[in-house]
Structure formats: structure tokens, C-alpha cells
């Protein structure tokens, strides 16, 4: 058994229990800046946790980061956990992280779809969706990144419950999505929303549900390009940067479209290193390199958000 985050093997994949234990260990070791909050319960009644990084203050401007909303993208959960450890241990050491956490809070959701994650460990490694039941269908689950209230039910989402991109019966029907939406609304001071996915190396910003340009296109394009350059500086991993609609394809009901329309200007989504040659089974020896390079990209965005309050 791994005891404490110092001996945790960040270069391996873990079941949900180990990840939740590692989060508790991190909180215990860095209790002055890290705490754990439960923001809801999944469809199968697993707790939905976020790690809160804060040095105090009341309702400070905040940055949200989530990983693993698509269950099978295991390298995202692993990257998020490594990132949590990195931020906690760099506070007080790295001036950038120290200054960030002295100014803003960071909320990090390591496992956004725990039911799906457990299902990938026990029944179907390629599962992507939630595990909710759809009335009048034998098919299970909703694509939680088609379930947000942003062009819901439009192009790039399926109305077939058996599809991997099924949008669900209504916006926010999935408790995993609804819990995040309620958290963001009740917090009221979230300034950046970053969602971590994996496949084909992209860094995207709104929109996905329509192909029109957002008002902040130039600024987000610059920030994303800078982040992609920082990321590439470590191992040369090349990212494509741009709006979801043109960089990948039109897809409605996505998280960063909703957050952008809700007023969170810095809404971006990463698609981490995965060439496709291993599918969603990125070899374990690539977990830490992926996390390391992603951290450089993330840090560029975090610094920009810190330095450009709105």
C-alpha cells in the first residue's frame, strides 16, 4: 500500500479508491493550502470531490480545472493528480505558484466522472459516458461533455441514447454536470475554467456549438498559443490551437462553451498527448512526461489569468 503522497507512484494508473486516498494524503500533508470539498454525488452515489488550493481570503477570484469527464481518458486523471502534488509542493518554492495562490484560489477536480472511471476499471475500458439510466432505452449513460446548456442538442451531439455522444434528455440532466454548474454559480467569482481531456493534442477555446468567432478570439488565441509553445518546450509535443469548431469539429453542449457564455472569459480545453497509436491507453511511462509538459502550458494560462483580472 502506498502511504502518503511522497511514496505514491505517479507514473502508474490507479483505481478510484487509490486516487481518492492520494487526495486525502495530499490534503493531510499540505493542510495549510489544500483542502477537499465535496460538491455533489454521482449517479451511482460516489462523492464528487474538488481539491481547493487557497492561502486564505474570502471568495477570492478562482480558477477551475477539471479532468476525466470522459472516463476512459485515464492520463487526464493521472495528470491532474500529479498537478495537484506539483502545485502543493511548489507553493513557497516557485515564485509563480506562490504569487498565484497568494492572489487566487484554484479548484481542481481530479475525477469528474467517477462512475464512468470505475466502470472502465471493472467492465469496459473504452467507456466514455456517465452511468445514468435512460427511460425507455436499454442503453446507459450520457456524454457529459454534450450535456451542458450551450447549444444543447445541436450539431455534433447525438439524440440516440446508445451513442457515445448522446446529449441526454435535457441540459444538466447528469448530476456530474449539474454539480459543477451549481458550484460555479454559487461561487460567483470563477475567472478561468480549464477542462482536461486527452486525444490528439489540441488546446481549444469556444465555440463548439456554433462556428462563429467569440469576442475574445484574439486574446484567447494568443494565450492558448503561448501555452502550447510553453508545453512544447519540454519534449516538443506539438498542439493545434483554436476554437473547438474549427480545430476539431462542431460539437454542442460542451462545458467551456457554457462557462464562456456564463461570463468566464478564460475558458479553455486541453486534449493531452495521445497520438492515437495507443488509443486511450497511453503507456504508463508517458504519464509523468505528459503531466510535466501539461503543467508548463497550464502555468502559462494561470499566470496570464492572474495578471489580467477582469
Amino acid at each position: 500500500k502506498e502511504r502518503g503522497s511522497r511514496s505514491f507512484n505517479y507514473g502508474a494508473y490507479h483505481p478510484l479508491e487509490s486516487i481518492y486516498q492520494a487526495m486525502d494524503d495530499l490534503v493531510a500533508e499540505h493542510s495549510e493550502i489544500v483542502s477537499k470539498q465535496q460538491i455533489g454525488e454521482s449517479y451511482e452515489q460516489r462523492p464528487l470531490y474538488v481539491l481547493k488550493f487557497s492561502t486564505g481570503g474570502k471568495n477570492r477570484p478562482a480558477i477551475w480545472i477539471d479532468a476525466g469527464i470522459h472516463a476512459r481518458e485515464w492520463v487526464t486523471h493521472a495528470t491532474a493528480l500529479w498537478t495537484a502534488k506539483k502545485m502543493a509542493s511548489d507553493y513557497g518554492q516557485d515564485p509563480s505558484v506562490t504569487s498565484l495562490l497568494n492572489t487566487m484560489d484554484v479548484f481542481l477536480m481530479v475525477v469528474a466522472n467517477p462512475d464512468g472511471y470505475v466502470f472502465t476499471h471493472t467492465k469496459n475500458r473504452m467507456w466514455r459516458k456517465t452511468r445514468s439510466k435512460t427511460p425507455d432505452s436499454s442503453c446507459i449513460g450520457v456524454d457529459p461533455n454534450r450535456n451542458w446548456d450551450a447549444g444543447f442538442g445541436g450539431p455534433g451531439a447525438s439524440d440516440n441514447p446508445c451513442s457515445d455522444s448522446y446529449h441526454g434528455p435535457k441540459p444538466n440532466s447528469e448530476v456530474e454536470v449539474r454539480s459543477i454548474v451549481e458550484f460555479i454559480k454559487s461561487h460567483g467569482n470563477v475567472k478561468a475554467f480549464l477542462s482536461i481531456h486527452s486525444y490528439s493534442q489540441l488546446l481549444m477555446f469556444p465555440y463548439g456549438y456554433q462556428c462563429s468567432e467569440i469576442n475574445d478570439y484574439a486574446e484567447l488565441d494568443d494565450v492558448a498559443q503561448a501555452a502550447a509553445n510553453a508545453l512544447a518546450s519540454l519534449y516538443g509535443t506539438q498542439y493545434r490551437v483554436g476554437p473547438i469548431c474549427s480545430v476539431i469539429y462542431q460539437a454542442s453542449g460542451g462545458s467551456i462553451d457554457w462557462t464562456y457564455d456564463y461570463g468566464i472569459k478564460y475558458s479553455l480545453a486541453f486534449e493531452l498527448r495521445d497520438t492515437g497509436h495507443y488509443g486511450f491507453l497511453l503507456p504508463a511511462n508517458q504519464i509523468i512526461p505528459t503531466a510535466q509538459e501539461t503543467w508548463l502550458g497550464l502555468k502559462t494560462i494561470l499566470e496570464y489569468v492572474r495578471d489580467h483580472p477582469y
Partner: protein
Amino acid sequence: LETFAGDQVLRVEPCNEAQVRLLKQLQAREPLQLDFWRSPANANEAVDIRVPFACLQDVKVFLESRQIKYSILIEDVQALIDEETREMNLSER
């Protein structure tokens, strides 16, 4: 426990909009149970599809008969999963 023995991942490279439309038609064929890892969007952009073993031949015939270029990205998905499981067990020990 769902197994993926014999399932392959195909990288399809449509060269024009007509081929993109054909791939979208393929995507809409629910009985095939194709898992699109990257959906068809534009010409000259790769589309990755996990194809269950049972309909591998149908899909390859569909692509070949329409001159849509593809290659096999993953020969056997289950072999990868087995390797990953082995690594996880090792790591646990």
C-alpha cells in the same frame, strides 16, 4: 467484462468533402456500434474509429469500395488492454 479481442482502430483519411459525408453516414449506422475517437469533420483530417471485430470486414469493404484511404492504427485493442493490465499489476506489486 467487455472484451475487445480482434477490435481494431482504423485511421481514415478522407480526401474530399464527399468522403467526409460518407464517413458521417457510416457514423450514423448504429447497428455497427462503431466508436468514433475522432469524428469526421473536414477533408484531409484524420478520423479514428474503433471497429468491433464482428463488423471489421463490413467497414473495410465500405471504405475500400469508395476509395477512402485508411490504415490500421491499432491491430488488436485487447492486446493493448492486456498489456496495460499487466503494467498495472506490476506497479501494484
